[in-house]
Structures are given as structure tokens and as C-alpha cells.
């Protein structure tokens, strides 16, 4: 009856199945500028979840009649590689990836200085290479890096992470098995490490008090992501002093 293969307990002695504490995030890593043909690119990893993002633009926006004469228009496409999940998924778009493309675009739109490049478009492409839950969060983090690498002007970076409830307990950074058998899943993104939520999607039954607690924990997670993003961008160019050119 019910879901096949659920482990008896997801938390034991305050440790999760992969050994993490309740507020521990998986190991994160970022690469900047991995796709040479793109104007900007980046990857982001939460443990086994691995997202790649490439940015093309600003470039002339087509079709012309949909151009905005005063602003840059962001287009975002989120897809999952067919080999990214245990069961192969059909390549291309699904209703889920269309929805995620939309909410990703809306989060990034919050910080891009669209008035700096009127009549243009920027394509943000996100491909999930390996999925172990929190894929949209990894995608948004990679896209933020890619936009900065491309020189698209932004108020700040967008940082995203997930918070869950498993076995009645609130945890940070939901992993695959926790996503399958948990009770609540919350994906959020903030502007930098500020109290400004630009992405929020929640599934599962919970009280208002639990929700407020999850938001607080989520903000801490986003702050950690933000710090990693900043360091990764700096490290890419930190190779000695530059000679004077003026």
C-alpha cells in the first residue's frame, strides 16, 4: 500500500540518511566560464545535483514586434538531460520544465538592470546534468553565476536553496531520497543574503509556524550559497596583479 521502497526512518539520532545534520547542506561547488562559446556560463552543484547554465546576450531581440523599446527581455529555458535521472526522461520540455523556466526567469528579472539594454534579449539556458533533488535551486544558482560572467548588469546575485520536512522535522537542502519520501518541500531564492524572496514554491501540509521556521532556515542556506557564489566569481580572475593600461 502506498509508495514502494520507503526507508523506515529518514532521520535517526538527529542524523539524516547521508550522515548530515538537520541544518547541514550538501557539499557545494561552482565553476565559472566553463562554456567558451557562451558569453557567460557557470555550473552549480549541491552534492549529486549538478546544473549547468549558459547565457547568450544581450543580443537583438527577435521577433522584433515583441521587442521592448525600453528594456532588455530575459528568456529562460530550463531542461533536464535525458540521463540526469534514474529513469531516462524524454529530452526537451515538459510541463514541469516550462513552469520552472517561468519561475526562474521571474527570480532573475528581479535583479537584472533591464533598462540598461533596451530592445535586446538575453537567453538564459539551464540544463540539469544530474538530478538528486533541489534541481531548480541549483539551476538558479548556476544562472546567476552565468549572468555575472557574461557581464549582464545586476543589482546582486540570486541565491537559492531548498528546505524540507522529513519525519516531522525541518531540514535544510533536501536530497533525493528526502524529496521522494518527505512530507514538505520548499524551494526558495533570495536576493543575495537579504530578506527578499524572489522564488517560493511549497508542497506539503504544514502549519503557519512550521512555515515561518522553514523560511528562517532557508535564509541561512541562501546566505551560504551567496557566499560561495561571490568567492567563485572572484577566484576566476584572481591571478596576480594587472599591469596598468591607462
Amino acid at each position: 500500500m502506498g509508495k514502494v521502497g520507503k526507508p523506515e526512518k529518514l532521520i535517526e539520532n538527529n542524523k539524516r540518511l547521508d550522515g548530515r545534520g538537520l541544518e547541514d547542506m550538501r557539499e557545494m561547488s561552482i565553476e565559472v566560464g566553463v562554456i567558451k562559446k557562451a558569453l557567460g556560463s557557470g555550473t552549480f552543484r549541491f552534492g549529486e545535483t549538478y546544473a549547468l547554465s549558459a547565457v547568450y546576450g544581450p543580443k537583438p531581440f527577435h521577433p522584433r514586434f515583441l521587442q521592448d523599446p525600453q528594456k532588455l527581455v530575459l528568456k529562460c529555458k530550463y531542461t533536464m538531460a535525458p540521463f540526469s535521472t534514474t529513469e531516462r526522461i524524454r529530452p526537451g520540455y515538459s510541463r514541469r520544465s516550462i513552469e520552472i523556466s517561468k519561475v526562474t526567469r521571474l527570480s532573475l528579472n528581479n535583479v537584472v538592470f533591464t533598462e540598461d539594454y533596451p530592445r535586446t534579449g538575453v537567453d538564459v539556458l539551464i540544463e540539469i546534468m544530474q538530478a538528486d533533488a533541489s534541481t531548480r535551486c541549483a539551476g538558479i544558482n548556476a544562472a546567476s553565476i552565468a549572468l555575472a560572467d557574461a557581464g549582464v548588469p545586476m543589482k546582486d546575485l540570486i541565491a537559492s536553496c531548498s528546505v524540507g520536512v522529513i519525519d516531522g522535522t525541518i531540514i535544510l537542502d533536501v536530497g533525493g531520497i528526502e524529496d521522494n519520501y518527505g512530507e514538505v518541500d520548499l524551494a526558495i531564492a533570495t536576493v543575495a543574503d537579504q530578506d527578499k524572496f524572489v522564488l517560493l514554491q511549497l508542497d506539503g501540509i504544514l502549519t503557519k509556524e512550521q512555515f515561518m521556521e522553514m523560511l528562517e532556515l532557508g535564509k541561512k542556506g541562501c546566505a551560504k550559497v551567496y557566499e560561495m557564489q561571490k568567492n567563485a566569481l572572484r577566484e576566476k580572475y584572481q591571478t596576480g596583479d594587472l599591469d596598468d593600461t591607462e
Partner: protein
Amino acid sequence: MEENKDTESQVLVKERELVTPGDVLATGLDFLPSSGCYRENNKIKAKLLGLAKIKNRFIGIIPLSGVYVPRPGDGIVGFVKDMQSTSWIIDINSPYDALLVLGEAVGEFVDITKRDISVYYDIGDVIYAKVLNVTKSKHVQLTMNDHRAKKLSDGRIIKITPSKVPRLIGKQGSMIELIKNETKCQIIVGQNGIVWIRGEKEGLATRAVKMIEQESHVSGLTDNITELLQKGE
């Protein structure tokens, strides 16, 4: 991040310090944001990944990447992409195309009923022109009314990231002069990242330009370039 009195005016970064979008570069109302920066309340913050540039009260950023946005006065290398009866559309390696009107391209009177303007500039021609003006919605006008402006023929064209152009030119033109002399080439560097090379050792010059683009942020670049040029083709 800053808990101390934000009303105090102070610069928080050093000249040429590497900054990322959202970094606070200065606090206080005495400073003004220039290219690449914005003001949020009483803080000046970075919009781009780049190097801080402090000039008197202006705080700006030299970007490390990004597309070319034309500014009046820029010298650019462009390609004639299309034409109408009295104007040409020029591809300037930017999200924005530029317009060159007959009056800004040809000094003499032209009777367009008798002459097709393609006799002056035709589709596919390469020109070095000056940006005359850029409107708020980024409509760009070029002019050939400048002593440096001309049609460029033969030689080869290479493209570099526009933000690396100052590095390629070097302090008072020192870097580009070095390459020109060692390769015996004419080299014209457009602010838009398009470089035209014509002369004896075009291949070597191309390699030098590419090396500068790749290693613009690495120290000892001048020495590496000198070494490359002296090894010859």
C-alpha cells in the same frame, strides 16, 4: 554587512580591486555612481563583475566581460550589412546596429536618382568609423567625417571581447605599438572589439592579440607578448 554609520562617506575598495555584482564600493552621499555602478540609498554598489575605478567622486567599474555598447566618440570597425536609398546599416558587433547616413559618409553632393550609393560602400565592406551619437533607446549613428575613418581592404579581421580593448592598446598605446613594430603590420583596434590587421606577419600579430585577450588579467603579460613576438613566425 556594514553595521557602522552609513552616513559617513567612505570608499570601501581599492583602485582596481576585483568586485562582484552587489558589492558595496562606497557609502555616503558624496560619491556618484558612474558606468557599472548604481546607488542604493546611500551606498554605491557594483552592477558588474569587474575592477573598481575611482576618479574623484565617481566610482565606476571596468567590466571583465560583456557586449559592446557604443558611446559617442568611439572609433569602431564595422561591416556594411544592408543599405537603403540614402543610408547604410552597419554591424558593429553589438546588440545594436548602427546607421550611417549619406550626409555623414560622403563629402560631395550625390544625386541619388542617378547614382546608387553602393558605389561608395557596398554590402560586405569593412569600415573604420566614428560613433556620432547614441540615443536613449540606443539608436546609433556613425560618421566617416573623421581623419581616421576609411574603408578597410585586404588584411584580416579578428574579434576580441570588447572589454579587453584597453589592454590590447596598452598604456599610451604601448602594447599595440609593440605588436605593430614587431610584425610590421597596420593594426586598427575598434572599441567594439573588432581588430583589423594588414601587413607582413599577420598570423603572428593575430596570435599576439589572442594571447592578450586570454591573459589580460594575468601579470607579466607584456613580457610574454614580447617573447612571443621575438620568437617570430
